[in-house]
Structure formats: C-alpha cells, structure tokens
C-alpha cells in the first residue's frame, strides 16, 4: 500500500514536471533566420539576419504589403556581442538552426575568418552544412534582400543559385564544414563561393521602363584565401577549371570550336565562328605530382564522358572519323582552359588552391616536411601537364546535324 502511494505521488509530481522540454521555445517566440550576413563596420562586427516573416502568407492572400522576410541587424565587438545586440532591437529570439547561408562582406573576409568566427562553430545551433559566400566588392547586407528569382525568400533564391552548380560548375558550393576541413590541411588553400551584385536590364511588359537598370545576383567565380584571409577572386571559367581539377564536376557544358578542317561551308559562312557544345555526364580527374631533376611536375588526367549538346558547323557526327575529331576538339579546349587557369593561378595568385600539395604530402611525406613552408613558391614554378580524354556516348535525338545534307 505504502509503495503504491509513493508511486501515485511520484506520478502526480511527474505529470506537472514533464509537460514539455525544459526551456522549450515555441514557434511564436522565435525568429527563424535563413541567411546571416557578417560585416565590418568601423572596428565592430555587424551581423544581419534574414528572418522569415510568419505573418506573410496570410496577409499576402489578404492583399497586405508585408514582405516574406524581415532584416534585423546587431553590432558588437564580437559576433556573439552582435548577436545579443539584436535582442535589443528585435522582439523575438533569433533561431539560427535553419540558417542555410552565411554571407561574409568583403571587408570581413579580408580581416581573416577563423579568429572572428569561433562562436559560429562553438554554438551548436548553427548547422555546419550552411553554405559560405563572400559578397564580392560589397557588404553582406547589400546583397541580402535582392531577389530576382521566383522564390519568395531571398535566402532561398541565393541557395538555389548555389545548388545550380550541379548544372554549371562556374561556381563553388562550399559549406562552412568544408571550409574548416580544408583550412587545417597542409598543401591546399581554401576557396569559398562568391555572390556578386550585377546590373540587369529591366524588361517591363508595359514597355514604359524598358532599359532601366535593376540589380540581380550571381554566384559566379570563387574567392581564394591565404590561411583565413581573402586575397583574390578567380573568374567563372577559372572556377570551372578548378572544379575539374578537384574532381567536383557533375554536369556541365563544354563549348569548343568545331574542328575547322572539316567545316565544309555548305550552308554557313566560313567567317562565322563555329562552336559546338558537349554536356558532361561524368568527369573523373586524377592528379599527380612527381619530383624530377628539373623540379616538381604537376599532372592531371581528365576523363570526360558526355553527350553532344549542339553542333554548329558542317561537321557530320554520323561519320566515325569526324566524330573522333569532335571528341578531340572538346578535349583540346578543356586542356587549354585548365592549363591556362593553373598557369594563371601560379603566376598571379601564387597559392595552391588545387590541392597538389596534398598529393605531394601523401606521396612524398618526408620531402613535404622539408618544403611545406615553401610549397606555394614551389607550386608557382612547377611544370604543369594535362591529358584530357573525351568520350561522347550520346548524340541526342539526332545524329547528322540538320545543316548537313
């Protein structure tokens, strides 16, 4: 009996004490952040949050003019202080668990990331899978809020632009986790994605504002870091080459000059620039480093499997010989482009962003210990060789181009 009474009393106590989690936060008490911007303002850190506006959907249907997101800012000596500053201006507690984007202003990135961003990794709320972007030539808050897509939320608009890398490798999709993993490696310098504001010609269906300029965002290119400091940007084409070398290309487009010796000039003008395109299905790259008498030699072997996207010119891809020439032309273009990028990075940036140092370290660990402090110097003067092999495995719905008789 005594035991039963104790159990009953305990159950009674538990009913009231186990109603919910300790310090539970209800949805109507938090502001869900989708994107976060970090900038330097004077000597302080300015943090900008893109907060989902929960009242948007209902008011939108009722004709209200409330936007889908709100922007709140906080300033402080550290990121944490800036986070807390937001609480003095915004009524809800910011929840960053759903934050998918971290945009860093160029000034912020040029000051070095690791020392300033410790809080982000210590805080369990922020997901390590959030993408990291550098606002090229701008403050983070300047690019936040621009939405030229169909997505309601500007954060999701940028997120989808990054995800489009699967179709166009002229950008990089670096998550903060990838950045940190690479940061600690010896023999590679980190890169991050870039977001840039560009002018866009307004196309107005009324015809009144035709030609006026509007802003849109592009995520083309990549930002290069030395240690954790932003030092340079590389172009979209160079980023594409970087992705090829890093074996990080899924699908993409390769446009190359149609082999000239077989352009028969039947229906097109010879002066025209004939370009054909290949859609890549699979790209596999193997890199290697060798020590030679004359120095270090860097090597890449790229294998492309693709399908013909378009053929402009008089080439007859139904012909085995000409088909081979098309594959060769594709390979040569990729080869030239990658070689050009590597030599440009060696000459202009002088940092190994491709990870040849990692291969060297793994292949020659003892030698790497001796030269690791000078690796970038060695990389800058290293000879680079590349082999590209293209296999076109599909021709699309037609084989002989429509302009070939």
């Amino acid at each position, binding site marked *: 009996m005594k035991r039963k009474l104790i159990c009953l009393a305990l159950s009674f106590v538990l009913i009231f004490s186990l109603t919910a989690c*300790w310090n539970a936060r209800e949805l109507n008490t938090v502001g869900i952040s989708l994107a976060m911007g970090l900038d330097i303002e004077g000597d302080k850190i300015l943090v900008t949050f893109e907060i989902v506006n929960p009242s948007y959907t209902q008011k939108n249907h009722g004709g209200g003019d409330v936007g889908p997101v709100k922007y709140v800012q906080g300033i402080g000596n550290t990121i944490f202080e800036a986070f807390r500053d937001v609480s003095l201006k915004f009524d809800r507690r910011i929840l960053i668990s759903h934050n998918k984007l971290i945009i860093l202003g160029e000034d912020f990135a040029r000051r070095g990331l690791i020392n300033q961003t410790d809080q982000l990794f210590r805080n*369990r709320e922020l997901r390590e899978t959030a993408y990291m972007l550098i606002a090229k030539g701008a403050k983070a808050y300047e690019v936040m809020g621009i939405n030229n897509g169909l997505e309601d939320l500007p954060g999701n608009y940028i997120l989808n632009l990054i995800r489009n890398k699967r179709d166009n490798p002229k950008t990089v999709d670096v998550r903060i986790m990838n950045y940190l993993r690479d940061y600690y490696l010896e023999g590679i310098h980190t890169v991050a994605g870039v977001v840039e504001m560009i002018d866009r010609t307004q196309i107005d269906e009324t015809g009144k504002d035709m030609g006026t300029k509007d802003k849109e965002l592009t995520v083309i290119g990549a930002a290069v870091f030395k240690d954790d400091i932003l030092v340079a940007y590389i172009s979209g084409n160079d980023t594409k080459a970087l992705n090829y070398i890093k074996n990080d290309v899924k699908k993409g487009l390769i446009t190359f000059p149609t082999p000239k010796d077989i352009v028969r000039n039947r229906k097109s003008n010879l002066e025209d620039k004939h370009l054909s395109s290949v859609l890549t299905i699979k790209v596999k790259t193997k890199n290697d480093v060798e020590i030679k008498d004359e120095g270090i030699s860097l090597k890449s072997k790229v294998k492309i499997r693709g399908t013909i996207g378009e053929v402009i010119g008089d080439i007859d891809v139904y012909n085995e010989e000409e088909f081979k020439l098309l594959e060769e032309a594709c390979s040569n273009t990729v080869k030239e482009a990658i070689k050009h990028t590597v030599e440009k990075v060696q000459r202009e940036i002088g940092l190994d962003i491709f990870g040849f140092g990692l291969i060297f370290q793994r292949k020659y660990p003892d030698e790497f210990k001796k030269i690791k402090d000078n690796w970038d110097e060695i990389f800058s003067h290293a000879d680079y060789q590349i082999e590209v092999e293209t296999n076109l495995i599909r021709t699309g719905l037609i084989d002989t181009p429509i302009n070939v008789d």
Partner: protein
Amino acid sequence: MSNVNERIIKERNKIYYNQTLLLLINFRVMLGLNNLPILRVPPANQDVWIVLLLSIPYILIFSLPLLFLSNKFNNFNLIEIIEKIMGRILGKIVGIYYFLVFLYYLVIFSSTFVEILDNALFRETPTWATASLFLITSIHIAHKGLRNLARLGEVLIPLILVSLFVFVILGYDNYQFANLFPILGNSTFKDINRGAIDISLRFVDAIIATMLTPYLVNKKDLNKVYIRSTIYSLLTITLITITTLTTLGPEFAKRINFPFLTYTRLINFQPAIQGFESVYIVFWIIGNIIRIAGYLYISSVSLGQITGIRNDRFILPLAILTLIAVQLIKDTRPVLGLRGPFNQITLIISFMSILVIPIIVIIVYLFRRKFKERG
C-alpha cells in the same frame, strides 16, 4: 553479507555469454564514442585508426593479470579474490581502493554524460536536473539487478550498434578518403605505440569483466567473452574513427568535443532531409545510461562486499553521492573541454587497477601457493 545471501544474489543474477558480451561491448563503445579520445592521443593524425587496431593486443596483454585471477577463482569477483589472497585486512583495504575506482569512473562517466546532454540537448538545464534524470533511470535499472540490466542490454545494445553502422553508411557522401593518407607517413613507431598504450589504458572494462565473472552461467566463457568483446568493440570504434576522420579531417576532428555527433549533423539529403543527430542522440543516451547503470551496480556490489551488507541498499546512496560529485565538478569546470587533470588521474588509476595491483596480487598468490605446497 552471509554466504547464503551472497549465493542467492549470484544465482538470481546469472547472465549468459551473449549478454555479457553485449554489455562489455557497450561499455567500451560508449567510452570511445563519447569524445573519441583516440583523435587526441599520439600521433594525433590520420593514422590514429592504426593506433586503435594496435591497441587491441595491448588491451589483451594488459588484461592478462586480471584474466588470470578471474580464471583461477571464477566463482568470485575481483574484490572477493583479493580478500582471499591478500588476507582480510589488506584485502579490505584493496577492496576499498577498487570501490573508489568504480565510484570515480561512475562520477567521471556521469559528468561526461551531463556534458554531452548539456551540449547536445539541454543547454540551459541545470546540472542537477540533467544528472537527476539519468541517475533516477540508472537507479531503477541497477535496482532490478544484473540479470535485468543484461536483458535490457540484450534488446537495446544491438539496436545501438546497428544504428551506428547505419549512420556510417548514411554519411558516405561526405567521405574524403584522401584524409587518411599518407598512411604511416607522418607517424613514428614510437608515437603509434605510445598512443596504443595510452588508449588501451583508458579501456578499464577488464575490471568490470572480473566483477561479472561469478555471474556468468558458463565460467569457461570468460576468456572468449573478453577477447571477443575487445575485438568487436575496438573494430566498431575504428570504423567510427575512420568515418569521422574522412569526413571532418584529422585536424578539425580533434578540436571537436563530440566528433561523431558533428558527423551525424552533416548527414543530409538535399534539400531538406537532415537532423539525423536527433536519432543518434537517442541511441547515445540509451548506451550511456546502460553504462552508468552498470557502473552503479558494480560499485554497489563492491561496497556490499566490503561492508557485508546487501548491495541494493547502497544503490540509492551511491547515486546521491554521484549526483553531488557531478554537481560539484560540472559547476566548476568542463570535463571533456579541458585537457586537465582528469585525463592524467584516469590513466594513473587505470595503470594501478589493471596492472600494478593485479600483478602484486598474483605474486602474493604464487608465493602463498608455493609455501602451501612446501608446507
């Protein structure tokens, strides 16, 4: 405790080979899983998984003295064995030492568990509330006796192990096997052996195995269960370590308090399926509660042995003592977040408990036997 009572308790708590195997695997896997200490022991680079594999023979060698004693006196637990060999007074003193060792591990494991819960789930919940939650559960389990603890383990530990393997597979997209190279390129033979010895001293479950021996249905299974549990658990931890290394990289991984938790946070299927860490945390909590309940039970048994009072009377007081100790430790300093004294103390205690004292006891036993044979 009267001999009859003692016998009844042992009879009631008989456990089978599979149950003992699973309990020992769980104790070790949870120790390795919590903060993956292997990532920080020498050489602390991409070769630590080799260190783990090398630690298997070291663990088995270090356990030899304890296994020898347990095999010789397989009807008695470690404290009874020591009392038999060393005599009543000295036996009691060494027995008290072992009780304090169990209590120390109970407190350290509980403090670590509070730290896990604080970081993973209850960030603002006070220590006493977090610790009370799992200690009440552990009291209940320990009160039900070893047999029920083993049955619980038999049901849940396979689930925990399977879940770990599933997580390993789910995160495959994030693997970068290049992080494991160069193999043995940056590590010296000395570093790897130092690391293997260090890590093998952290796995103190040989003492637990000797406490469980008298409860085994088939005493001859002791060696088999010990060797197999060591191999299976270390292989599981090696798999987890390789997974973590390939995903996070060796340098970043060793900066993280709970690397496998971070690993599970990275598992996601585009665009929105993520949050796998919640499932992992559930299994993590269950595994740790089983371990803490096990140590609470063993501590109570050792205290019961020393005082001659039924062990279940000590479960609640020991849990309260643990709660107070955890409160004092956790409200003063982090356990995992600091490379502080706990690591050193634990290594010294392990060295004494696994190697030094058992070797002394064996020497005394051999001398006594020799004198007995002469006499």
